Structure formats: structure tokens, C-alpha cells
């Protein structure tokens, strides 16, 4: 077992365990904080896969943006004064059975498929290449996504405040 493997198992464990907590925690705030761990774990896996830029973006956007957003959501939609920030679950058993079977199938598919893998020379840093692709081949997508974000921003603001009128 190499160090790499150990690190992988570590991150994998962090990701999965915290993920379990996310979906099972009674308290939403707990869920939100374990989600933070999950994002870290995923970020670590990215690093292991040699996607350093992506790992950074993962932490920045998810942890710094989305997670905060979610927390705000939690705060705004629960009566904080009640400190009853609990959230119940339902149809747990069918979901567990179904999803277990589903996961098993996915797993089966995964293992039974003979993935064509080949060694790939990972460049020292992917940032350069990503950047070049973004402004050449995927320029249009990049632009569109920019607009999308803008629209989403305005849209979200507009939806959130519409009731006031």
C-alpha cells in the first residue's frame, strides 16, 4: 500500500462518512457542516486525480459560496428563535432498499465493464491548459455560463423579493 493509496482511502472515508452524516443528521445545521467536510474530501480526491485547479475551485465555490448560501437558506427558513432547526425524514426504508439495490447495480455495472484505461501524462499544472481551452475552444460556453450566472443572480434576487410587492 502506497502513501497515495492511504491518502485516497483517507479522503474517500472523509467524503463518504461526512456524506452519510449530511443526509442523516436531524439537525440541518449539522448537515450543513458535514457537507463542508464532504466538499473537502471531494476536493482531496481531485488533488489525487491531478486536478489541482479544480480542487481549489471546489473549495472556493462550494465551501465559500454554495455552502454559505445554504446556511443562509437554513437560517432564513427556520424559525431561529425556536432553535428547532430539525428536519425529519420519511420513506426511509423504501429509499434505503431501493437505493441500495441501485447502488449495487451501479457497482455491478462499474465492475463488469472493462474500462479502457491508459496511463496519461498529467501536466504539471492544469491551470494553463484549462485557461487556454476556456478562451479558445470553449469560449462560447464560457461566455454563456457567464451570462447564465448573471441571469441566475438577477433571477434569484427577483424571485426572492417578488412577494414584497
Amino acid at each position, binding site marked *: 500500500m*502506497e502513501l497515495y493509496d492511504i491518502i485516497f482511502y483517507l479522503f474517500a472515508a472523509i467524503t463518504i462518512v461526512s456524506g452519510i452524516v449530511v443526509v442523516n443528521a436531524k439537525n440541518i445545521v449539522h448537515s450543513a457542516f458535514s457537507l463542508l467536510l464532504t466538499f473537502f474530501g471531494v476536493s482531496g480526491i481531485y488533488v489525487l*486525480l491531478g486536478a489541482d485547479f479544480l480542487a481549489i475551485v471546489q473549495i472556493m*465555490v462550494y465551501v465559500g459560496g*454554495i455552502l454559505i448560501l445554504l446556511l443562509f437558506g437554513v437560517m432564513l427558513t427556520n424559525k431561529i428563535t425556536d432553535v428547532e432547526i430539525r428536519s425529519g425524514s420519511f420513506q426511509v426504508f423504501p429509499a434505503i432498499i431501493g437505493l441500495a439495490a441501485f447502488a449495487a447495480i451501479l457497482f455491478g455495472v462499474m465492475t463488469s465493464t472493462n474500462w479502457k484505461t491508459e496511463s496519461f501524462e498529467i501536466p504539471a499544472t*492544469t491551470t494553463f491548459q484549462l485557461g487556454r481551452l476556456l478562451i479558445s475552444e470553449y469560449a462560447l460556453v464560457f461566455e454563456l455560463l457567464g451570462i447564465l450566472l448573471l441571469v441566475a443572480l438577477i433571477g434569484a434576487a427577483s424571485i426572492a423579493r417578488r412577494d414584497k410587492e
Partner: protein
Amino acid sequence: MQEEIRNKKLEVGLNHFLTVSVVLFSLGLYGVVTRKNAVMVLMGVELILNSANINFVAFSRFGNFGINGELYALFVIILAAAEAAIALAIVLNIYKRFANVNVDEINNLKE
């Protein structure tokens, strides 16, 4: 570390990453399906998106697709951000209307 990764014959392969992705996906879906709170559902969605991203990056690493997979993962993250923003705006709206964000009680689709 980069060197190590590059030079060593590793035990961890594609399937390992995919396994993590599968588990994460199942968890995310479980969260989407079982949780009552809309914000929790959103969190489940985030998990699913992350599992998908792992797949992207893993295949990008092990398959001969160049760096494009990572790029797509990047796009997914952007979309996730936008989605989160919109979704939360909606959740806020729902809350204002029903004084509640429990999706199981918001069953206007019924009949």
C-alpha cells in the same frame, strides 16, 4: 507528490474513484428522496453533482480524453452555483407562502 503519483504503480485505480462516486451519488439521492426540508434536498443535489464531478475528473484522468473532463467539471460547479442561488430563492418564496419548507407538505401536484 506529483512525481510519486506519476511514477508509482498504484493500487488505487479508476474503480476506486468510481466506487466513491457511486456511494456519494446514492447518498445524495437518498438525501433528495428522504429529507423533508427543501434545503436538505438541495444538499442532496449538491452531493449528486459532486459525485458526477468525481466521475468527470476520474475519467479525464484515466481515459484518453485530455483535460476536457476537468473543464466540464468546472462547468458543473458553475451550474451548481447558479442552481443553488435560484433554488434558495425559490425556497424562500415557498417559505413565504406556506410558512414551511417541508416538501412533503407542499403537495400541490396532487390531483
